[in-house]
C-alpha cells in the first residue's frame, strides 16, 4: 500500500516513480543534443489522444490552507483556486483579458458606456438543487458583495441601479462611464452567491459558509482540515457532459520541500502560485512527467516593487529613489533570485495589462549615476563610506523575499546607502505597512486586468488611508497623476484612454513613487496527462469544467 494516484493504473505509477530520475537524465540529454526526431515522436501519440475522456481525479496542492471556501467572504489566493471550481462569476477572461462567457452566455454594453446587460445561461442550478436566476446576480452584486467584498464594493458602488429584467437577464446601470467595469466579473472579483441561502442572514455568521453552495462544475464533498479538500463532479452541471473529471483533490502540504517531493513523485499533478519556491523551479523543469508554464496569471498580473515611505527623509526626494533604482540590477533579481521567472518592468503597469506603454524613463543599473544623484543631494560618504542609512523590512512571504532583502542590502551598500534589515511576520508586516510604520519594504500587488482596478489605487492621493493595506501607503501625491487616472477611468474612447495612461506612466516613471522590481510570474506545473487545464487569464482559478486526464 503506497500512495495512490487516482485515475492511473498502479503499474504505471510504480514504473513511473522508479524511472523519474533516470528519465530526467535522459530528458536532459535529449534536450542538450536537440535530437530533431524526439519532438515528432512525442507529439504523435499526444495528437491521437486529443478526444477528451471522462473520469479520473486531479490531485493538486492547496497552500496555505484557507480559513473558508466561501469565496465571497475570503479572496485569499488558495481560496480562489479551490472555490473557483465551486462558485462562478458572470465572466472569465482570455489571455488578452477579453471577456468570455461563464455564468453569462452573452452581454452587451450600450454605446454611452453606461448600461451593461448580461444574458444568463438557462437551466443553471445551485448545488442544493435550487434554480439559479437573475435574482441571485442582483442579490450578490447589490447586497452581498457590497457588504463584505472590498474590491466588488469599489466596482459595484459605481452602479446607479442593478436590476433583473427577467429571470435570465441582468442590467447594470452606471452613474458615469467606467470602461474597466467589464473586467469586474471574474469569479474572485464578483462570485455569484445563492440568494435563497444568504438573503436576510448575517452573511459572515451564516452556517452555510462551511458547506459552500455554488453553481460550478465541482461540489465540495469533504474538507478534512489540515489534510485535504475533496471536490467531486456536479452531476447537474448546466453544460452537457461537463465536467470531464470525477473530482479534484487539493492536499494541504505545509512544507515547501515536501511540496516539491509531491510533484516529483507524481502524487500531485498540478502546482500553482507559490506552491514551489522559485529556486526549485529549474530542477522541477527537468522532470519528464510535467510541463512548466507561466501563463494563466494575466488577470492577477502581479507587480513587485520596493515600497518607499515618502514621509521619511531622504526617501521623500525623488533623486534618492532614482539613485536606488540605478543601484539595483533588476535583471539579476529576475535571473538569480526568481530563477528566470518574471519580466523586468519598465513602469507601473504590468506589460500584460491593457494600456501598458514601454516608452517611459527606465533605469539601467548604473552605480555612477546613482552616486552622482546622491552627491547632488549633498549626501556625501562619511568615514565608512556611508551616505545614508535606511531600514528595509522584507515582505515575510517566504525564502525568496528574504533573499531579495539580502541582495538589496548589498546592492545599495555599493553606492553608500547602508541598509538595516528588519524582520517581521505576516501579521506584523501588514500592521506596520498599513499604519505607515516603515521606511522601505518589498511588496507586490495584483493589477486585475485594468489600470483603473489594480494600478491607480497605489498612486492616487485620495487613496492615502491610514490603517488600510494595499492603498497609497507611501503617501505619494501628484495632482496631475490623480487627474489623469480619474479621467482615464471614465474615458470611453480607448485611444484617448491610452493617451492618458501613457502620460501617467511617463510621469510615474520619472517621479518613481516606488521602485518597480519585477513583473512577477508564477510557475504552474502540470502533469503531461492533464489536458485543457489553464487556458484563460485566470488560469488555475478557473472552473476546470473541460479539463480531462489522458489515460
Amino acid at each position: 500500500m503506497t500512495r495512490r494516484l487516482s485515475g492511473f493504473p498502479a503499474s504505471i505509477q510504480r514504473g513511473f516513480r522508479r524511472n523519474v530520475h533516470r528519465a530526467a537524465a535522459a530528458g536532459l540529454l535529449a534536450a542538450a543534443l536537440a535530437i530533431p526526431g524526439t519532438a515528432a515522436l512525442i507529439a504523435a501519440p499526444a495528437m491521437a489522444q486529443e478526444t477528451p475522456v471522462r473520469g479520473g481525479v486531479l490531485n493538486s496542492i492547496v497552500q496555505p490552507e484557507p480559513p473558508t471556501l466561501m469565496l465571497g467572504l475570503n479572496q485569499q489566493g488558495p481560496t480562489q483556486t479551490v472555490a473557483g471550481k465551486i462558485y462562478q462569476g458572470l465572466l472569465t477572461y482570455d489571455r488578452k483579458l477579453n471577456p468570455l462567457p461563464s455564468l453569462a452566455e452573452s452581454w452587451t454594453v450600450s454605446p454611452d458606456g453606461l448600461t451593461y446587460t448580461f444574458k444568463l445561461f438557462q437551466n443553471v442550478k445551485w448545488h442544493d438543487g435550487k434554480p439559479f436566476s437573475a435574482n441571485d446576480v442582483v442579490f450578490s452584486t447589490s447586497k452581498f458583495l457590497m457588504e463584505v467584498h472590498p474590491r466588488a464594493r469599489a466596482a459595484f458602488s459605481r452602479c446607479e441601479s442593478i436590476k433583473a429584467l427577467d429571470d435570465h437577464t441582468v442590467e447594470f446601470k452606471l452613474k458615469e462611464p467606467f470602461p474597466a467595469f467589464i473586467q469586474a466579473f471574474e469569479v474572485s472579483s464578483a462570485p455569484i452567491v445563492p440568494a435563497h441561502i444568504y438573503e436576510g442572514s448575517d452573511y459572515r455568521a451564516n452556517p452555510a459558509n462551511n458547506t459552500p453552495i455554488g453553481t460550478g462544475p465541482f461540489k465540495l464533498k469533504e474538507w478534512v482540515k489540515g489534510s485535504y479538500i475533496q471536490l467531486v463532479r456536479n452531476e447537474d452541471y448546466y453544460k452537457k457532459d461537463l465536467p470531464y473529471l470525477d473530482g479534484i483533490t487539493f492536499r494541504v502540504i505545509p512544507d515547501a520541500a515536501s511540496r516539491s517531493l509531491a510533484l516529483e513523485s507524481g502524487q500531485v499533478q498540478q502546482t500553482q502560485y507559490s506552491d514551489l519556491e522559485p529556486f526549485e523551479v529549474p530542477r522541477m523543469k527537468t522532470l519528464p512527467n510535467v510541463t512548466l508554464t507561466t501563463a494563466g496569471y494575466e488577470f492577477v498580473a502581479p507587480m513587485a516593487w520596493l515600497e518607499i515611505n515618502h514621509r521619511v527623509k531622504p526617501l521623500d526626494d525623488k533623486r534618492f529613489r532614482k539613485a536606488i533604482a540605478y543601484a539595483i540590477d533588476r535583471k539579476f533579481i529576475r535571473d538569480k533570485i526568481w530563477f528566470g521567472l518574471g519580466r523586468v518592468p519598465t513602469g507601473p503597469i504590468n506589460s500584460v495589462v491593457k494600456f501598458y506603454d514601454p516608452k517611459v524613463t527606465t533605469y539601467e543599473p548604473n552605480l555612477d549615476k546613482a552616486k552622482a544623484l546622491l552627491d547632488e543631494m549633498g549626501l556625501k560618504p562619511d568615514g565608512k563610506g556611508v551616505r545614508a542609512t535606511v531600514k528595509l523590512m522584507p515582505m515575510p512571504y517566504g525564502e525568496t523575499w528574504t533573499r531579495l532583502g539580502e541582495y538589496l542590502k548589498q546592492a545599495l551598500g555599493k553606492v553608500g546607502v547602508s541598509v538595516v534589515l528588519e524582520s517581521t511576520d505576516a501579521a506584523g508586516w501588514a500592521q506596520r505597512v498599513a499604519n505607515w510604520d516603515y521606511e522601505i519594504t518589498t511588496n507586490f500587488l495584483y493589477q486585475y486586468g485594468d489600470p483603473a482596478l489594480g494600478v491607480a489605487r497605489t498612486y492616487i492621493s485620495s487613496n492615502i488611508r491610514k490603517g488600510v493595506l494595499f492603498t497609497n501607503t507611501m503617501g505619494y501625491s501628484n495632482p496631475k497623476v490623480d487627474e489623469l487616472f480619474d479621467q482615464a477611468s471614465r474615458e470611453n474612447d480607448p485611444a484617448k484612454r491610452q493617451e492618458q495612461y501613457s502620460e501617467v506612466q511617463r510621469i510615474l516613471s520619472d517621479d518613481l513613487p516606488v521602485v518597480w522590481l519585477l513583473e512577477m510570474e508564477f510557475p504552474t506545473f502540470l502533469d503531461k496527462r492533464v489536458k485543457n487545464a489553464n487556458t484563460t487569464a485566470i488560469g488555475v482559478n478557473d472552473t476546470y469544467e473541460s479539463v480531462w486526464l489522458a489515460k
Partner: protein
Amino acid sequence: MLGFAQLFASRLVKAAAILIAIVVMNFFLVHAAPGDPATVMAGEAGAADEKFVTQLREQFGLDRPLYEQLGTYIGKVVQGDLGFSYRQQRPVWDILAERLPATLVLTLTAFILALAAGVALGTLAAVTVGTWADSAITVVALLAYATPIYWIGLMLSLLFSIQLGWLPAFGYETIGAGYTGLAHVADVAVHLILPVITLALFYMAGYARLTRASMLEVRSLDFVKTAKAKGLTQGRIVTRHVLRNAILPVITVAGIQAGQLVGGSILIETVFAWPGIGRLAFEAVLQRDYQVLLGIFLVTSVMVILFNILTDILYGLVDPRIQVSQ
C-alpha cells in the same frame, strides 16, 4: 493514604491557581504581538478598505477594550468554553478535538517507542560499557540528538518514499480511499511509520544517554556489590537493582515530555503534512488566531500539570522510600 489524598487535593488547588495565572499571562502575551486577525485577513485578501477591517474587528470582538476581552475570555474558560475561532468560524473545542487524535497517535506512539528503545539501548550500553556496542549506541544517540529533526524527516522521506517507494511521503491517510475498520488502521499505520521514527529517534537519544549515565552511577554503589556477593544473576542485578534505582531521572524527564504530548510537534507535522496540533498552533500564531492559540496553551498547560502530579505519584511506586510529605 490520607496523606496521599491531602497531597493530591493541595496540588490540585495550586494547579488551579497556576492555570489562571497562565491564562492571563498567555492572553497578554498573544495580544502583545503586532497585528491582529483582521489585518492578517486584509493582507491575505490582496485588497482592503476601511469597512472590511472594521467589520472584521467588530465581528471578532477586537474593538472592545483589552481588559473586557480578557474578562469575557476567562468567564468562558471557567465554564469550560474555549471560545470561538472567528477565522475558522468554529468553536475552538471542535477544532482541537479534530486535531487531537492525529496528534496523540503520533506523539504517543513516538513517546512509547522512544522510551522503550531509549531505556533498552541505554541499559545495553551501560552493561557493555567500554565495548564497541557501547560506543556504537553512544555515537548513534549523539547523532540522533544533534541532527535537526526536519532534516532527518526529509531524508527518510526521500529514501523510503521517493527512491524506494515503500512508504507514503506524507499525509495522515490515503485520500478518498474510504477505508473503514482494520483497513483504515493499517492505512494510518503505514502513514505513521516515517513521522514516528523521525520523532522517536530524537527523544530516544535523550533517554538512552540518560539511562546509561544514571545506570553507570548506580552500578558502583554498595548495594549492587552486595547483590553480586549474594550470588544473584547478572540479569536480575541489572533489572531489579540497578535499573530500578537508575530509572528515576528518566521518569522525571519522561514526565515533563509526556505533558507536552498534546502539543504535538511543529516540525514533524509540517514536514510530513500531519494534521496535528503543533501545526495548528504555528498557523494560529501567524494568523493571530488568538482563541485557538490560547486554547492550545490552556490544554497543554493542563496536561503538563496533570503529568507532573502523576510523575510524583509514580516516584513513590517505583521507589517506596520516597514518601509523601507535607
